[in-house]
């Protein structure tokens, strides 16, 4: 990788910032802050401040238009607990997280193992398999929304292979719709674990396998005792990133069902959007946003801490 070409000489590995020369004393921490300031200002003004402002708004009954808003305490949060659509959304979010983390990880690992064998056209195959991940999620949603239509490709395929009895209005039926949306989510989310696992697999020293083979270890034993343990950091990173990612599910659901039929596919993200920008319940909507952000930050903190530690 490109950044590996720059290696500090081993002896002087990052000395503490020297302060010997008189000329340097003038370059105090102020220079650092001057470099940091532009980004910090934008970051605080358009990420930190909005987040805190949302937290504040979630304790009001603001409708987004009127100049006044009343402080209502925890009323929005109490309403949230009693909102049956929120129950559906929480359930959908949980199933979503479970399925679209576990399946892409398992599938991604399987593909990485397959691609990591002796193959021709390896980088072409890898490129093709990763392709769905770069498409705009709206595009993916529109494609699969079309495939899942009653007279769409999925049903036609079922008919052609003699399973016509399974034909179904996949997105029109509240019992199948959310599961149907998970299919393109898996399609999109498998590429990244595949790439990461592939890189990790290539980092396992071949001698380990040689030694295991000499000791008579079979294929499964080598996987079980060498490959899988070596991927521990990768599993951890992938699960952490996936948790952050799945908490914010929005695009696919919005593009494929808009939360319908009958709110059966609402997730927290879409339900927040509909409350705010169609129901003008800004206070209530931001309360939902706060819940999503809270969960996302909470599950992300261990990952962020480990990353920040590495940068120290």
């Amino acid at each position, binding site marked *: 990788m490109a950044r590996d070409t720059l290696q500090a000489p081993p002896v002087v590995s990052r000395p503490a910032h020297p302060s010997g020369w008189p000329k340097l004393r003038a370059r105090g921490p102020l220079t650092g802050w001057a470099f940091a300031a532009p980004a910090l200002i934008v970051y605080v003004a*358009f990420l930190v401040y909005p987040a805190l402002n949302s937290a504040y708004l979630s304790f009001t009954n603001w409708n987004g238009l009127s100049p006044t808003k009343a402080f209502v305490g925890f009323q929005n949060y109490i309403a949230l607990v009693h909102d049956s659509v929120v129950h559906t959304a929480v359930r959908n979010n949980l199933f979503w997280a479970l399925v679209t983390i576990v399946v892409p990880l398992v599938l991604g690992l399987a593909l990485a193992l397959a691609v990591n*064998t002796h193959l021709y056209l390896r980088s072409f195959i890898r490129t093709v398999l990763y392709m769905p991940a770069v498409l705009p999620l*709206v595009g993916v949603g529109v494609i699969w929304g079309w495939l899942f239509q009653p007279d769409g490709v999925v049903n036609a395929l079922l008919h052609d292979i003699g399973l016509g009895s399974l034909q179904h209005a996949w997105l029109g039926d509240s019992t199948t719709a959310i599961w149907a949306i998970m299919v393109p989510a898996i399609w999109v989310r498998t590429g990244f674990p595949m790439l990461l696992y592939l890189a990790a697999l290539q980092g396992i020293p071949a001698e380990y396998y040689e030694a295991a083979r000499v000791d008579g270890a079979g294929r499964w034993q080598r996987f079980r005792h060498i490959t899988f343990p070596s991927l521990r950091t990768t599993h951890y990173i992938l699960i952490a990133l996936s948790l952050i990612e799945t908490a914010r599910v929005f695009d696919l659901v919005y593009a494929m069902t808009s939360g319908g039929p009958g709110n059966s596919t609402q997730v927290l993200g879409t339900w927040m959007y509909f409350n705010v920008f169609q129901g003008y319940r800004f206070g209530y909507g931001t309360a939902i*946003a706060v819940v999503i952000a809270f969960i996302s930050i909470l599950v992300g903190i261990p990952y962020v801490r480990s990353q920040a530690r*590495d940068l120290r």
Partner: protein
Amino acid sequence: MTTYTRRQARRRRRALAGTAVMLVFAFFWVSPVLILITTAVKSAADFASSGAISLPSSLTFANFQSAWSVGQFGTAFRNSGLVVLVKVPLGILLAALLSYALAQLKIHFRSSLTFFMLLGLTVPIFIAAVPVFTLLRQAGLIDNIWGLLPPYVAFGLPFEVLILTAFFRRIPHELIEAARIDGAGELRIFFGIVLPLSLPVLITVAILDAVATWNELTMALVLLSSPEHRTVPLSLLNFQGQFTTNFPALSAGILIALLPILIWYGLSQRWIVSGLLAGAIKG
């Protein structure tokens, strides 16, 4: 000698078989896009009689013409392109300045500041939707593509800082010290030494950032409303609503909308892969 070549031949046979299996899998994996292509070049009559899962009996490009004019993709490409062209360099410049301070300069609260910036990785853009909307409404920047810039830059910073700080830390401190002794100012060191040295990583971050910016939906949906200001995801959503039954035209429209990102991916996939790995595992 014979055993050696026999083993080689067996190896090659196995590689060929494995390649064949993976190619078939890859074919099915991207079949949604392939079906899109075959459907888009079918006439409506052909599609009605043969359905989606067949090759077209003759090629037509009429679907692309009608999709192009109805979908107003030209406007959407221009809008998304402008946002990407301004957002990406601006965001990376700001992130690089901050990352340089974190990696090489004296600064108070270095580790808290790093944590504070990286925490942004976990903050979903929803949480900013309402306050940014009201803020921009006051500033008269609602329904204006430039209103997307501030939140896009802010939400892009954590990832950029993560990768750039990791890279800048590897620049030997002596190099910067030497330039200082020679009398170079901090800005000159940054623009003259640090940025040129980091060109590969800057390009990688820019490519990833461009993809994410081009594909973003939530903020655009909240902030933009009129047709002439739509970005690509918004125009696709709108287009979907207009062609719910005309599948060939719908397919053509989706293909048009996806074409720039597919070309971009084809050209830059090596950078994308190395960037993703750097972001996740960095050292």
